[in-house]
């Protein structure tokens, strides 16, 4: 058994077949000319051995190579890249099977925000009328810690619409440094959630430790390959069209380990990519293809995921924007490209540009939640609790997003419209017409119990002159935080602490 996600049986087709092929041809042309600018010698070696034309150059202090990639290399990589990728989990029932030829969409969190919002209800007294006292939620913004990461993994384990976990807090404790960050962030995640854990690596040097940790949890190297409880995200591309040195090496190593990896490219329309949809999609597609090629050259058949994360630039400060229509254009078109290539797609929805939960955040988040998954990418990340364009995480917002994703999932149900259903409802109509009050409500009862009727908004307040949504969600967060945590067993924790250097003793639940 694996997680169900949601089936989008008739994906939204923004581009026509001709437009998809045009994007594909344009990306191939871009890969030949101007080609990609590669800073990694190892990647250049792979590409040039495979027949790419390479010209050495110098970019500032560094050696770099202009690489002109012929269409045949693209073709070969797409042929060897698998269309099915399994994301494992501590609890095997939480596995995700990504199938680029299928139509299931899974939702996950992300990614490494700097700030965490604490919500606290406080009583306020009106200056005009001291009789008028109200409870309002106050919001405190502070830097995230490893304890917060544990909390958010636990919260995520309890959100029914969250299918996989990407850490959503950057751990900034004084005793965390580059040398111990990766092991601690992966351990804090894995020790508090039974779902799949996906993440990037800060330090190449810690990859072996992180993989070893995953092996211990999965029960060995072989078991890990069958049930990859972790997968990686590599931002191997720096838009426009540049391949980063260290990340390329990570990508090559992960491919050879046989673990799933997302090739993530996040160009910003209007600064690091054209703002026009045509240019954006052609460029980001070429960038992701480059990553897939390097990955497949390193290890043909390695599990790889098409990760286009195109965003739009905000015109008054050139920051990212996630809650705008162009974001939807870019992302739905990219999902179509991945489907065209039959490579599993990692997409994005549900980020608020707003700094705090509220009306703006809800509008922005719902907008992309409702649109992007309709194009049936395999996984949608950034979907829970992200605010201030991924700079801030708020657990209350994650609970809200969880419900909103439930609404969106309900939307994709196929119409139940066949002969037997019509016979059934005709009978009901005839029956009701013979009753004194002609009410259909009794016929809702079974459906209500089988989940066939969408419930009322669960965070509605009682008052009629104040929005209480955030207060209600806060109660829900408190309730979830009080539930028992699903830690790794004592034996596994012991083995991990014995073998993996750099873990903070305070993260071990069995050390009093």
């Amino acid at each position, binding site marked *: 058994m694996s997680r169900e996600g949601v089936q989008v049986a008739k994906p939204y087709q923004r581009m026509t077949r001709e437009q998809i092929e045009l994007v594909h041809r344009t990306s191939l042309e871009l890969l030949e000319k101007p080609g990609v600018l590669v800073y990694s010698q190892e990647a250049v070696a792979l590409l040039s051995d495979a027949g790419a034309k390479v010209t050495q150059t110098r970019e500032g202090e560094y050696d770099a190579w202009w690489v002109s990639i012929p269409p045949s290399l693209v073709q070969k990589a797409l042929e060897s890249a698998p269309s099915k990728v399994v994301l494992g989990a501590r609890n095997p029932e939480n596995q995700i099977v990504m199938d680029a030829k299928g139509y299931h969409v899974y939702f996950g969190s992300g990614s490494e925000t700097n700030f965490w919002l604490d919500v606290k209800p406080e009583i306020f007294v009106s200056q005009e009328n001291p009789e008028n006292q109200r409870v309002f939620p106050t919001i405190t913004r502070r830097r995230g810690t490893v304890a917060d990461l544990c909390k958010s993994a636990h919260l995520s384990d309890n959100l029914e619409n969250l299918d996989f976990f990407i850490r959503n807090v950057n751990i900034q404790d004084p005793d965390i440094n580059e040398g111990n960050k990766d092991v601690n962030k992966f351990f804090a995640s894995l020790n508090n959630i039974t779902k799949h854990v996906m993440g990037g690596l800060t330090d190449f040097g810690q990859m072996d430790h992180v993989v070893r940790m995953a092996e211990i949890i999965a029960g060995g190297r072989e078991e890990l390959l069958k049930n990859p409880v972790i997968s990686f995200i590599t931002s191997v591309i720096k838009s426009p069209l540049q391949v980063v040195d260290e990340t390329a090496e990570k990508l090559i190593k992960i491919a050879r380990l046989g673990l799933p990896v997302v090739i993530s490219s996040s160009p910003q329309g209007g600064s690091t990519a054209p703002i026009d949809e045509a240019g954006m999609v052609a460029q980001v597609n070429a960038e992701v293809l480059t990553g897939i090629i390097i990955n497949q050259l390193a290890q043909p058949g390695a599990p790889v995921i098409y990760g286009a994360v195109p965003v739009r630039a905000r015109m008054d400060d050139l920051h990212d924007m996630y809650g705008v229509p162009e974001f939807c254009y870019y992302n739905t078109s990219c999902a179509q490209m991945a489907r065209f290539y039959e490579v599993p797609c990692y997409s994005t929805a549900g980020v608020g540009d707003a700094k705090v939960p509220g009306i703006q955040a809800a509008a922005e988040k719902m907008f992309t939640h409702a649109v992007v998954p309709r194009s049936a990418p395999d996984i949608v990340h950034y979907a829970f609790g992200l605010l201030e364009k991924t700079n801030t995480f708020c657990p209350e917002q994650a609970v809200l997003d969880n419900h909103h994703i439930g609404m969106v999932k309900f939307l994709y149900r196929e119409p139940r419209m066949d002969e037997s259903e019509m016979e059934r409802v005709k009978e009901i109509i005839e029956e009701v017409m013979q009753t*004194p*009050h002609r*009410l259909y*409500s*009794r016929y*809702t*009862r*079974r459906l*209500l*119990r089988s989940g066939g009727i969408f419930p009322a908004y669960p965070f509605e307040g009682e008052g009629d002159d104040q929005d209480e949504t955030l207060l209600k969600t806060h109660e829900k967060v408190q309730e979830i935080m009080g539930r028992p945590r699903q830690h790794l067993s004592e034996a596994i924790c012991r083995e991990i602490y014995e073998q993996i250097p750099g873990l903070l003793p305070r993260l071990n639940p069995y050390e009093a």
Partner: protein
Amino acid sequence: MSEKIIEQIVANVLQGRRDKNDEGIDEGYDGTPGVTELVEEALEQGVPVEKVLGEGLSHGMTLVGEKYESGEYFIPDMLAAAEAVGAAMEIMEPYLVKDGGQGSKGKIVMATVEKDQHDIGKNLVTIMLKGAGYAVVDLGVNVPAARIVEVVEQENAGLLGLSALLDTTMPFMKETIEELKNKNLKDNVRVMIGGAPTNEDFAREIGADAHGKDAFAAVKIADQLL
């Protein structure tokens, strides 16, 4: 024996099953007798009427009410249960009268006032009142004041419920009460009003005895006034 059938009545009230064709809420009831059939059977077996009413129907409705309060049940569940009990009450009526009682808990006339077609809310109120054990004469919609008063008199009703959903039809509530006064009936019958545009103040203003914000309030008012 009688305990078993009372238990079944309670279970079927909880399922809101009027009769054997009713699907109810949970699996496993298909084709088994519903509340009306069970009540008939109980009376035939000679189970005392008060027992069927008290330990069966009323107790069942109390449990339904508790489930609604706790959030487990929704309005359709309440309505279905009330409908089942209401239908059973009609079967019980002759037995109750025979036993020397006055039949139901009391008689209520319900109507949506003249020029008003809205009846969903009024129907909810009617069904819930029946489910609570009252005999309700529902006159339907667009009922002129004179006709309402005529029926109140005929039926010797203890309570009259008026519903209006339009600001333009609210005055007909007042007209109905005036008509009761003209016929010297106002002392015999209490009046409760309801419907979205009405409120307590308006009720007081037109001389109604109570205003109910929903069907539950209507049952509470009936329990107090009758």
